[in-house]
């Protein structure tokens, strides 16, 4: 197998630009790791050509997927196998499995990457695991069907949202106690801190809103609503949230509305709706944040959005029921 960045297009250009091309081949492009919930695989896409580099078999029902802070591994939760697959980003192979307890749905790491935080969907827990050894540090009882996790920049707080209980639970990482519970709209899925850490955004899939929480007072300070001409309100299901590095733009995936909303976090106004594939859930930036990748669960593809023009550039096929995306530079 030729070096991964040595793509077909690159080979064709070889005769004309040998120097340029060999430079490209020596520096590996970024890669996208997409978890395919019903295929039990992770699709690896080249970050330049968006061609499939590898399809990695995982354990059963891979959903939540992230890269480690050192980019050496991609971690994916296997909900029906009660573990995490550790994928080596060099060899693109599963090199280790970490026991998580029942039904892990999503995960996050501490800032250093030493600890993993895992939401156990079926038994209302967050499990804290030492990454190096796989040993459980503690389990924190939270609401029913915990899902999305957020870690504050100072590392002192882990937030988990529970779908059935409709709450954001703030967990103190020193004591592992839940210090605050904030009721949000029905069936919250994802929690994300704003880049300046002043607010926490929580998406509610069935409620159809994003709640903006002040993490100091634990109060909901604003609720963002979405209205799309020609789309019934009940189809608007906000899930994935991403902010640009400057915090001036937020992107919110809207599930069955088949769109990504562009929101001004200053005014909370929705500026635009970008049409993508069907049932977009999770979304992730490219390493330089010039592209936004959106996993479309029902059309089995990933839509690439150009961030500066706020336009969908193309969609590329992946496995069945793509759930989330991790990006490694």
């Amino acid at each position, binding site marked *: 197998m030729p070096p991964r960045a040595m793509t077909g297009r690159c080979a064709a250009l070889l005769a004309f630009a040998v120097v340029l091309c060999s430079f490209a081949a020596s520096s590996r492009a970024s890669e996208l790791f997409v978890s395919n919930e019903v295929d039990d695989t992770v699709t690896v896409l080249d970050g330049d050509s968006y061609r499939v580099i590898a399809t990695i078999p995982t354990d059963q029902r891979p959903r939540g997927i992230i890269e480690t802070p050192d980019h050496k591994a991609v971690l994916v939760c296997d909900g029906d196998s009660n573990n995490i697959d550790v994928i080596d980003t060099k060899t693109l192979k599963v090199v280790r499995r970490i026991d998580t307890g029942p039904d892990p749905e999503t995960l996050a790491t501490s800032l250093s990457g030493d600890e993993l935080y895992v939401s156990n969907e079926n038994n*209302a827990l967050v499990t804290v695991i030492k990454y190096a050894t796989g040993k459980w540090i503690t389990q924190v009882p939270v609401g029913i069907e915990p899902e999305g996790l957020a870690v504050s920049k100072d590392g002192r707080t882990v937030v988990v949202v529970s779908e059935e209980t409709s709450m954001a639970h703030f967990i103190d990482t020193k004591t592992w106690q839940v210090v605050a519970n904030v*009721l949000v709209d*029905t069936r919250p899925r994802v929690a994300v801190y704003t880049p300046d850490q002043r607010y926490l955004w929580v998406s509610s899939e069935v*409620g159809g809103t994003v709640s903006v929480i002040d993490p100091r007072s634990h109060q909901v300070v604003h609720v963002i609503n979405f209205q799309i001409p020609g789309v019934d309100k009940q189809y608007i299901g906000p899930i994935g949230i991403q902010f640009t590095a400057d915090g001036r733009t937020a992107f919110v995936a809207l599930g069955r509305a088949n769109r990504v909303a562009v929101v001004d976090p200053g005014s909370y106004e929705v500026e635009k709706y970008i049409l993508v594939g069907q049932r977009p859930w999770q979304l992730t930036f490219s390493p330089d944040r010039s592209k936004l990748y959106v996993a479309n669960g029902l059309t089995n593809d990933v839509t690439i959005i150009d961030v500066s023009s706020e336009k969908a550039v193309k969609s590329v096929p992946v496995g069945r029921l793509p759930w989330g995306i991790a990006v490694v530079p």
Partner: protein
Amino acid sequence: MIGRRAARVLGLLVLALAGTSGAFVAAAAAGPDARTFPIVYLREAYPGPGIMPSLLESRPEDEGLAGAEDGTAEINTTGKFLGVHFKLYVVTLPAGADVAAQARKVFAPGPAVIVADLRADDLLKLADAPAAKNALILDIRTIEDSLRQRDCRANVFHILPSQAMRTDALAQFLVEKRWSRWFLLQGPTPQDAVYAADVRRSAARYGARVVAARSYDYNPGSRRSDTGYQQIQTQMPLATQVGTGYDVLFVADETDLFGDYLPYNTFDARPVVGTQGLVATAWTPAFQSYSALQMQNRFQLFAHRRMTERDYGGWLAVNIVGDAVMRGRQTSPAGIRSYLRSDGFLVAGFKGEGLTFRTWDQQLRQPVLIAQPLMVVSMSPQPGFLHPNNTSDTLGFDQPETQCRLAQ
């Protein structure tokens, strides 16, 4: 025996609710700050359905109740974080009880929130009891159109889809499949007649045709005999031999007398839909989309059996109360009633969208599953069936058609 126990439970309930007027009561057990909100689960010990056509089918004794109990445990998880506690009081009336008289006891302490696992006639008696005037009754059992039409009541909200919603849900699916010529086979009960009328209504609404219709008065004498299947193998082709070509047999057999005998026994090689065969339902243990899988797992752990449609109704009713109290901040049955009718209310029920109540008949607005015994086949409304307000209102009686006049 059941009667005596029920009477005791009722006595305890009256004590527990005394002086509460249906609002919060202080509960020492739940801690000094916790407020306890009572929910009454009211059912009657109806005689069982007798022998079901299939050995695989059963009617669990705690059907409906197990869902409500599981739901109570779940809303108490939210409540734990908010300092609210819900307590489910289960009242089982003896078979043949005078519901109106019992209602006086249930409502003696004041208006209450009732999850009603009652048949249509008993539900009406409960709703019409003078003491129930300011109560909130969440009906988790009936599907009768009449209760959503002329016999609707201001204090009753219906959780499960009506008969008309079910035939509309099936009709949309059949029309989408271009299976639009129907043979209607109607059983002997009055409810079968209502369902059959709904089938004709759905056909007219969605451009299908009832090309043949027949009444069938099946005598279920041979259900458990060794030669039963031979009898059936003779009877069903006779009952289904019509000269007209058709696409599907639409069976109206609300009491499960013969419908399950029809698949593979029809005279012509045609699918069976309706009250048996491919059915329209709010829930089946086979459903796993929209987080339903997690619900099925939780219910199995809780009740050690599969979740039925009535269990789902019980679970949803209790969750509706939980939402009204904790998110809507309502404290009385009257307050909950206005909240359920308001724009602020929606409840999640594993259908991929928030569920709300139709204000004109207080029927829960919901997508409806299309299912065969082992699999969910589809969910209606089908794509392309449009509505100016909410596509789920293409199922059942829409506002312009309603015969319900709610006394406000």
